[in-house]
């Protein structure tokens, strides 16, 4: 047992470090006290915000594109992609090492993660050669940003329940309907979309997958303001949007299969979890007074903090176990499936408890608040979203129960009936 890199890994890490040192600004050790505007270390988990104002958003996007260009030039923009599409041709452990190292720097790669992590691999697996040549290189360099148009108002956890209509008209498809929770739709150049091409087929059989130019007439993106006040997502309306059949990815009716490729490529969640954790409340407890002195000296506070510590480090060491498997060229076990489930609730518990410790001043949510600059106020809101986004707590427990423990699947009434005969609750 040791935590050392293999010689090859150490060599790679050295290359990454010297690239980052030469090209990016290192975070201060006080990552708990984010520089600049409110709570950027929390919001960095999602896509960039739009409510900060158009000018600031544009500057942030330009900066991110400039950084992505440098990364691409150095070969680090898409470590797992094959070299022919501008990737590094690297291994999963190299991907993890890069993410670990980049985490220490003030850079923003969030704009490109969905494209490079999920949509690019889908195009590689199912797309036409001319499309791969045309789109993949610009996806890597950040010249073109992609978004993923999957969820709908009536298709969240039940993703295959989408209703976006795709009707064939000669050599064209006409799209009508609404997508939701789309990160980056308002600045994305292209999107990948799955739509219902045959409502009379079974739920999973009547779907078809396309890519769309986000400037196509009839597409309108509107930001969704969240309880945090920021807007990381959009709803996207499709009103008689006409696209050529050449933009279909995979066969008609194969949309669900193609979507699974996208979903399976969800970025290996081995980077550090965002923001708020044991370390932040431990630091805060040394500044906050409770009835018998500093919170850190209070027995109840210490007991609670110990629980969060074992969750936090338990997840970290679980990642080490997975990295070990990757390093040996093996597939990691199912351990990582617990990560978001534990992280999101922990963040909600930590932030809620910290606000309670702050007593009346916990009410204040603006930059003057002296304690750790709104960290816990922001976390209080962000964590509520985190327990839902990317798989709700309940869906994740089902996944663990069914796929890890092998327990029976839930009984379903939607597998045998044509989609248009399923009970839906709205007509």
């Amino acid at each position, binding site marked *: 047992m040791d935590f050392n890199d293999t010689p090859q890994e150490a060599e790679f890490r050295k290359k990454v470090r010297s690239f980052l040192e030469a090209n990016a600004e290192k975070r201060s050790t006080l990552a708990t006290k984010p520089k600049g505007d409110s709570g950027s270390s929390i919001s960095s988990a999602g896509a960039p915000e739009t409510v900060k104002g158009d000018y600031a958003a544009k500057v942030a996007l330009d900066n991110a594109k400039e950084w992505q260009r440098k990364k691409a030039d150095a070969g680090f923009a898409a470590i797992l992609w094959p070299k022919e599409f501008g990737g590094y041709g690297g291994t999963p452990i190299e991907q993890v090492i890069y993410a670990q190292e980049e985490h220490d720097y003030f850079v923003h790669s969030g704009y490109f993660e969905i494209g490079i992590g999920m949509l690019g691999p889908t195009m590689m697996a199912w797309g036409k050669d001319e499309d791969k040549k045309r789109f993949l290189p610009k996806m890597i360099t950040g010249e073109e940003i992609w978004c993923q148009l999957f969820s709908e108002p009536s298709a969240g956890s039940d993703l295959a329940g989408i209703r976006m209509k795709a009707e064939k008209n000669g050599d064209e498809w006409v799209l009508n309907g609404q997508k939701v929770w789309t990160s980056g739709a308002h600045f994305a150049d292209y999107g990948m979309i799955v739509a219902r091409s045959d409502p009379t087929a079974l739920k999973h059989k009547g779907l078809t997958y396309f890519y769309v130019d986000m400037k196509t007439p009839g597409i309108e993106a509107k930001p969704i303001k969240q309880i945090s006040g920021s807007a990381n997502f959009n709803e996207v309306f499709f009103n008689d949007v006409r696209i050529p059949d050449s933009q279909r990815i995979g066969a008609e009716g194969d949309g669900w299969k193609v979507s699974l490729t996208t979903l399976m490529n969800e970025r290996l969640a081995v980077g550090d979890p965002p923001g708020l954790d044991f370390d932040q409340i431990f630091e805060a407890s040394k500044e906050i007074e409770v009835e018998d002195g500093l919170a850190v000296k209070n027995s109840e506070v210490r007991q609670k903090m110990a629980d969060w510590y*074992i969750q936090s480090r338990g997840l970290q060491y679980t990642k080490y176990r997975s990295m070990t498997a990757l390093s040996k060229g093996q597939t990691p076990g199912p351990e990582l499936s617990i990560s978001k489930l534990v992280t999101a609730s922990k963040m909600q518990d930590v932030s809620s408890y910290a606000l309670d410790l702050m007593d009346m001043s916990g009410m204040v949510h603006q930059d003057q608040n002296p304690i750790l600059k709104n960290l816990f106020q922001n976390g209080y809101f962000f964590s509520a979203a985190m327990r839902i986004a990317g798989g709700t707590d309940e869906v994740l427990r089902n996944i663990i129960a069914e796929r890890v423990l092998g*327990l029976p699947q839930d009984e379903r009434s939607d597998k045998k009936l044509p989609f248009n005969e399923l009970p839906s609750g709205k007509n």
Partner: protein
Amino acid sequence: MNFDFSDDQKLLRDQARKFLQDKCDRKSVRNILEDNQKNYDADLWSQISELGWTGTAIPEEYGGLGLGMLELCVIAEELGRALAPTPFSSSIYIFAEFLKSYGTDEQKKKYLSHIASGKKIGTFALSETNGKPKPNNIKTQHASDKLNGSKNPVSDGESADYIIVAANSDSNSNYNSLSLFIIDRNDPGVNIANLDTIDPTRPACTVDLKNVACERLGDEGSGWEMIDNIFNRAAVLFSFEQVGGAQVSLDEAKKYSLERFAFGKQIGAFQALKHKMADMYVKIELARSNAYYGAWALSTDSNELPIAAAGARVSASEAYNYASQENIQIHGGVGFTWEYDCHLFYRRSKLLSLNIGGIRQWKENLISNLEKRNIV
């Protein structure tokens, strides 16, 4: 990054598991549970001693196999899975570790080879009353090379040949007045009386001492420091036992939920139970990872040990307590019968989470060690 056991260690685990499936089935655990005359499974003890398990981490020069602490962690997990009714933890995790860390060469020669061979059993006597052992409630006195006092409870005391006793060498008891002494349980001044425990497969007793002859272990006045260190080492080993038992609790809950039908289907198909078992899995994986980190700290003599051990201890205690409780719940009515095995795990999990200090105490250890590290 190599945060895993080696192939040899995994082979050892497979062999140990197979051996215990064969030699330590539930029937033999129940034999100890139900027989008031037996404190442990003597046949099993002599067989695992012959296999060398008791000498795993004892140096060859003192009669052991001279393997490392990681090998001992592997064995601990298997003993936990099997609910092995033996004094392994008292004699190996605690007595042997005290001797290895603080014994003189002469003491190591005198005691460790007998412990390694399993011919003799050792244990440790600290607690004297309800609540956390502290200077003000340790009354046992050392004076004129004799010990006087009363210890309660002492794990595996009835089976023990040697007992390490914590005693004050000063009537003004404080954190610098505690010392450790080794006694022979055959000394005429030693009086042992059995105590019932929440898990009779892991017995305890009272030990009364009247003018008992003793030899000092370690430096005078450094008792608390030695205890902290050895409990940290033992905590990592116990955490593997706990993870082993927790995993079997989950496995058996799952098995039952697939066999039992209600409302026309397997009860394991109900989300209420699926989600409960998912939560068991989450706690066990976190505990396993924390235990691995403890194993790393233990095997490398890292100065992270106090933090790593406390993290492993808390995480594993909570996981096993939860898994064994919810295993009964998933079994429903039969879960709280004597006939079903759920209670064996329920008993063992709670006992293991108390025997070197409760969860509350270890959480406090964890945070105070984190504070110390921050200051450094």
